[in-house]
C-alpha cells in the first residue's frame, strides 16, 4: 500500500505546475524613523500598554516603583542581579515553578530579545532574562525591560536578527480580542496589564 506521504508527494509531482519565477522583494527593508525610541513608546501606548522611560542608573529604582506592593513577582533565574530589588517578594523560576504557582503569582518581570518600533512589538526568545514561555504568560501583570540598543524599526530588520530555532513570542500590547463586533477590547487570557520600562 502506498503511504499517505508518498501519495501526496506523488500527486504534487504529477501536476503540471507553474514554472518557478523569482521572488519579488522590492519592499522596504528598513524604514525611516526620526527617533526609534520615541516611535516604539508611541506605538506600544497605542495598544493600551503603559511605557515608562528611564536612565540605566535609575532602573532598579523604577522597577521597585512599578512592583512594590503588587505582590509576589515571578522572575527568570538569570536576570541581572540589580533588577531584583529588595522591596519585592520574588519567585525565581529555579527550580521550575509549577503552573499553579505561576497562576497564584501576581506578576512577572522579564527582559526581551528585541523590540520593533514601527509595530510597537516586543519579541521574547526565551534567552537571557526572559525565561521559558509560561513565565510571561500565566501571571496577569507583565513588566518588560527594553534597552534602546534592542530596538529595530522595521519587521524585516527584526526577522533578520531573530533565532528561528528558539521559541519566539511577539507581543504587541496586552491580551486583546476583536471577536465582539470586530472591535478591539483588551484583556482576555494573556497578561491583562503590560508595562514597559524603556532604558535609554
Amino acid at each position, binding site marked *: 500500500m502506498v503511504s499517505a506521504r508518498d501519495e501526496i508527494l506523488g500527486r*504534487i*509531482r504529477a501536476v503540471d505546475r507553474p514554472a518557478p519565477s523569482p521572488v519579488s522583494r522590492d*519592499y522596504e527593508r528598513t524604514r525611516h524613523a526620526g527617533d526609534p525610541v520615541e516611535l516604539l513608546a508611541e506605538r506600544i501606548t497605542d495598544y493600551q500598554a503603559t511605557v515608562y522611560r528611564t536612565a540605566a542608573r535609575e532602573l532598579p529604582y523604577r522597577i521597585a516603583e512599578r512592583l512594590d506592593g503588587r505582590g509576589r513577582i515571578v522572575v527568570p533565574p538569570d536576570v541581572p542581579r540589580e533588577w531584583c530589588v529588595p522591596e519585592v517578594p520574588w519567585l525565581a523560576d529555579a527550580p521550575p515553578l509549577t*503552573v499553579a504557582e505561576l497562576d497564584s503569582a501576581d506578576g512577572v518581570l522579564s527582559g526581551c530579545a528585541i523590540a520593533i518600533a514601527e509595530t510597537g512589538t516586543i519579541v521574547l526568545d526565551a534567552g537571557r532574562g526572559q525565561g521559558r514561555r509560561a513565565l510571561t504568560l500565566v501571571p496577569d501583570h507583565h513588566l518588560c525591560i527594553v534597552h534602546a540598543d534592542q530596538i529595530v524599526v522595521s519587521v524585516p530588520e527584526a526577522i533578520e536578527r531573530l533565532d*528561528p530555532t528558539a521559541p519566539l513570542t511577539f507581543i504587541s500590547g496586552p491580551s486583546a*480580542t476583536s*471577536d465582539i463586533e470586530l472591535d478591539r477590547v483588551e*484583556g*482576555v487570557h494573556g497578561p491583562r496589564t503590560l508595562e514597559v520600562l524603556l532604558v535609554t
Partner: protein
Amino acid sequence: MGRNPVTWLGSPTFPDAARDALGDTQLRGNLRKATTTIRGKRESAVAELGDWEELRRAGESVKDDVLANLDTYLERLEAAVTDRGGVVHWARDAEEANRIVLDLVQAEDTDEVVKVKSMATAEIGLNEALADGGVNAIETDLAEVIVQLGDDRPSHILVPAIHRNRAEIKEIFAQMPEPPTSDDPHALAEAARKYLRRKFLSAKVAISGANFGVADTGSIVVVESEGNGRMCLTLPETLITVMGVEKVLPRWQDLEVFLQLLPRSSTAERMNPYTSTWSGVTPGDGPQKFHLVLLDNGRTSTLADEVGRQALRCIRCSACLNVCPVYERTGGQAYGSVYPGPIGAILAPQLAGDLHDEQAASLPYASSLCGACYEVCPVRINIPEVLTHLRAEVVEAKGKRTPEAMAMSAAAWVFGDRRRYEAAQKAGSLTRFLARDGTLSSLPWPGSKWTDTRDAPVVPKESFRAWWRRNRG
C-alpha cells in the same frame, strides 16, 4: 474516500440560503456594523505603509514559489521538524487526518483537549470526529466559544461569531458557571477568561492549526490575539498541529512579508497582540511532544487547476469577506462552508472537488464580480477570474443539455470562425430596433433564461471589427 466535509452536508444552494438570510434583519444589522468598522480601519492600517503594493507582490510571488516547488518545501519542512524532535504525519483527506489526531490524543490517555482556532481543523470536522471517539474538544478562541456554546455554525474566517452582537453573546454565555455581569465587551471577555482558565491550566493535550510553517527552520507560526493560542502552545505536555500543505513557506525571511500583510489585512492592526513560533521541541520549555499533521484534503487537486490554484495562496485574513457586498448582506452561513465569502466561493468548491454537487456548484455564482475582493487581497488572488473560470466548469459539469450550455457551445462555434462571428454581429445589430431605453429587457428562449432576471446590453450598430476596418487606413 468519504465526502469532503469542507461544505456542510444538507446545506441549501447559495440562492436559497441567501434568500432566508436576507430576511434576517438582526443578522444584516450585525454584519453591516462589524464590516463597516473593520473596512475603515483596514484602509488606514494599509495606508501607513508606503510599500504595501510591493509587499502584496512579494506575498504573491513567495506563495507562487511555494506552489511551484511544493514537494521540495514539504520534504524540507518534514526534515527540519523531525530534526528538532517533532513527529510529522501526512493525511490524504479529512477522514485520515481525524483518525491520526484521535489516535494521538487517545495515546495520551485523556478525553479532553483544548483547541486554538484553526480553519484546517474546522474544515475536516475534527471536533465532531473527536466527539465520536469519546474526546471532548474545547474551543478557546472567544468567537469559537460563542459558536460552540451557541450550538451554532461559523460565519466568518477570522471572527466565526461575527453574526452575533453583544446582547446575543451575553445570552449564550448565561450557561457558563460564572456568567457575564453585563453585555459590555470587557465583561464578556472576563467571563470567557474565567470559563477557560482551569481548562488551560490542566489540559494534557492541545490542538492547533498553523498560519505558516517554515521549511528551512521547521518553525511553525500561530498568529492570534487573546493569548488562548499561547496557553495551548505552551502549557500542555503534547501539542498536535494540523496544517494544510499549502501553508509551508520556503525561508525564515519570508515571514517578514507575511507578518506585515496578515495583521493589517485581518484585524487592521499594525501587529496582532501575540504571534508564537516554535521549531520542534524545546527541552524544558513548552510541550515535550510535538506532532505535525500535513493535510491534503483537496489541495493537490486544486493545485492541478491552472486558474483555480491561486486560491491556495490564501492566508485566511478575511479582508475579502469584509469588503464583499454579497457577504455583507447574506452573512457567512449562507455559503454552507467553513470558508464563506469571496475566498470561500472559490476555495470550498475546489476543495470539495465535486461540481456535480448542487450546493458546491452554486458557490461560484455568489458574487456580483465587482472586484473589491481582488483589490484588498494581500496575496493578490484574482478572485473574479477564478469565479468566472469555475462558473464555466460548473456549466460543463452540468452537461450539454442546459440552455446555458447550449448558448455557450453556440457561442464557441460562432467565435471560432471570423465569417460566422461577423455575420452574427450583423444579425445582432438588428436587435437594436427591439430595444427600449438602450436595454434589451426580453429575449426569446433560450435568451429569456437570461433576460427574465436582468437586462441584456444591446449590440452596437457597428461592430468594433467593422469600425476598425473602416478607420485603420
